[in-house]
């Protein structure tokens, strides 16, 4: 019961934080691009856009910073045994992340409050540093998670991690694919979220120049990031086939070990050889099924499977919208002039965030029952503290309230821009 509450609290804290962390990675890119356009063209509308996105960034970054603080403490409050053993290894990426985050916090202060205090070029560079440090902090934190999925850099002796090589964290085979997949996910999700919001505004005030410019930058980011996600997703699939076969088997609900394994897309269409291709780039490759592993090592299959389908479904839908956008741009037609496409952007707005939540569910729930894959079980790591349901509920309510307030505030913030013409 306490284990379940601890897992619930961790999942909820991560699920909440990731939305804001992603904003902290990708929003600075939007604001910096808008400011760069302003400096390039002298168009005051871009400046206004940069300032508005900067204010949105400020709110999301602050909530991300405090919810991230909660997580760094929760590592110990909920999983002291895990930290006791893993701390000296995962502390390495975490301390690098600490500095990246430090610089991000410093330069976001300089950026937000320095509009009239420094040369415009320098101010833009402050924004670039914020964007860069945001991406770096994300990558360092993902390195920790990758290590939990495919641990490296130690020798396991009697359940103790000995002969530690902390830099080997970055040699975790899960690291490259996870880092790329998460970083582009951030740009794709925020691109779509911002595009959806401004598309909605354009539907209400057709022809608004402000929202047209905003839509252009946001979709620009999505158009770059979403297609890249196909490759990084494929990379991640190949990785888990090799190093975390149980996770892949659970994600695909693949029970029987077999060659020529097909894939069932969205629970409907069966694609022959699909799974063998996805896992090994070879239609005849043997894909290990759950039957190969003791049931005590299975993750909760339904959750992982459904989450995986949701992630892939959202990604596919976003890719569809991106193709539509490219199609219009190639034919030199204005994206903002197509009401159906604007509606598509509105409906696609939350898909990236949903895909991120689902993707984290796949990687985290898919690793269960392990907290460090093959090394330490989650049940061994949990705190002896009783009554964990209390903090779980407390933080859930707290985050629910904060989430609602953020949505209300940003709504007011964005639509205050509606009268800008």
């Amino acid at each position, binding site marked *: 019961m306490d284990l379940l509450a601890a897992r619930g609290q961790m999942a909820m804290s991560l699920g909440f934080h990731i939305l804001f962390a992603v904003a902290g990675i990708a929003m600075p890119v939007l604001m910096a691009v808008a400011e760069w356009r302003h400096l390039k063209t002298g168009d005051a509308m871009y400046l206004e856009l940069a*300032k508005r996105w*900067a*204010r949105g960034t*400020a*709110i999301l*970054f*602050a*909530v991300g*910073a*405090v*919810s991230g*603080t909660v997580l*760094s*403490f929760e*590592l*110990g*409050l909920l999983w*002291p*045994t895990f*930290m*006791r053993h*893993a*701390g*000296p290894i995962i*502390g*390495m990426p*975490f*301390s*690098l*992340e*600490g*500095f990246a*985050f*430090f*610089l991000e*916090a*410093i*330069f*976001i*202060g*300089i950026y*937000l*409050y*320095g*509009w*009239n*205090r420094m040369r415009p070029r320098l101010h833009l560079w402050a924004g670039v540093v914020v964007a860069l440090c945001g991406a770096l902090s994300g990558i360092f934190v993902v390195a920790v998670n990758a290590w939990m999925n495919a641990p490296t850099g130690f020798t396991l002796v009697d359940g103790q991690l*000995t002969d*530690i090589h*902390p830099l080997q964290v970055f040699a975790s085979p899960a690291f490259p694919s996870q880092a790329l997949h998460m970083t582009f996910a951030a740009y794709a999700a925020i691109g779509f979220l911002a595009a959806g919001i401004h598309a909605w505004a354009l539907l209400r005030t057709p022809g608004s120049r402000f929202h047209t410019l905003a839509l252009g930058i946001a979709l620009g980011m999505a158009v770059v990031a979403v297609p890249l996600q196909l490759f990084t997703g494929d990379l991640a699939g190949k990785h888990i086939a090799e190093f975390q076969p149980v996770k892949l088997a659970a994600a695909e609900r693949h029970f029987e070990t077999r060659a020529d394994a097909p894939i069932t897309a969205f629970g409907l269409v069966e694609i022959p050889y699909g799974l063998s291709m996805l896992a090994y780039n070879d239609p005849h490759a043997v894909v290990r099924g759950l039957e190969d592993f003791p049931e005590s090592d299975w993750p909760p299959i339904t959750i992982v499977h459904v989450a995986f389908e949701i992630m892939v479904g959202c990604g596919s839908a976003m890719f569809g919208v991106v193709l539509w956008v490219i199609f219009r741009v190639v034919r030199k037609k204005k994206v903002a002039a197509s009401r159906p496409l604007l509606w598509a952007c509105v409906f696609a707005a939350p898909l990236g965030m949903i895909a991120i939540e689902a993707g984290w569910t796949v990687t985290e729930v898919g690793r269960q029952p392990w907290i460090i894959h093959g090394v330490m079980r989650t049940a061994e790591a949990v*705190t*002896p*503290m009783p009554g964990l349901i209390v*903090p779980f509920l*407390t*933080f859930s309510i*707290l985050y629910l309230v904060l989430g609602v*307030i953020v949505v209300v*505030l940003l709504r*007011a913030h964005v639509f205050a821009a509606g009268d800008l013409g």
Partner: protein
Amino acid sequence: MNATEFVYLTMGVALVVYALSAGADFGAGVWDLLSRTVEQRKALEKAIAPIWEANHVWLIFIIVVMFTAFPKAFALLSIAFHVPLTFVLIGIVLRGAAFVFRSYGLVAEGTRARFGRVFAWASALTPICLGWVLGGMSSGAIVVRGEVVESGYLAGWTTPYAMAVGGFALVLFALLAAVYMTVETDGEVREWFRQRAIACELLAAPVALVTYLLAPAALVAGGIPAQALTAGAACVTVAALWRRRFAVARAAVIAQVALIVIDFGLAMRGDFVLGVVGVANSGTQAPTLPLLIAITLGGSVLLVPSMIALYRQFKSAESPSPSRPS
């Protein structure tokens, strides 16, 4: 000094900087709560808005260094002080969120005031809980056998001594904020902060005495000389405030609070939980520490100039500073 001690010392330095910077941001919440006029509140908001998030990161830095270098101590602290640390976290979330929610002119005046209350109360209560944790760590009441915390989840931080440390932390943070504000304001607002700063300093003396009397016998540090030095700094602060030498007062109060934190650190004698776990018995394996030190030193090369740039931009005397982002 070996690598373990160096890392412990680094954490101490970070704790001093955290107390002097983020501590004052917490203290600003106390004055927000007690403020009478809009000008006072606006001045407080202007003072902390650009810097509070950067100041806050020192805490995360301390935590990360701790679980990297002293994982056993981190695990034990997380278990023994689960309850007050949870309070601290709730406070940090509430004040940070409420502060940005009320900034940027996004909400109506009434809602703004309500967020302001949340920010102020959370800022005032969090240092007390932080003080409970520090008090608990130094209480000598934590009993550990093997890796099991046998003294339970209420030991240490619920002692009268820990309560006193909570109160002392609050008074010191409020004092820091009030003194800093005298440098960054003028006219009636400055006078208001000046009077509060003096009152705070006068209050700090008996609270410090009570804390000292309640402290466990095992907790001895610099003794009379250190205390005399601290008291001297406090006297200079009061005198400088009295004579309206605000920059001097700020330097003196920084020295005073730094001395208190340093004295506390020395009294802990390399422990995280007094007499239970510390540098001597919780350091990690070899390659981690040199790497951590290298990262810390390398990171500082970027961090220190950036931090100076931030403070120069928003805290230098000659900048008349428009109050909020345009």
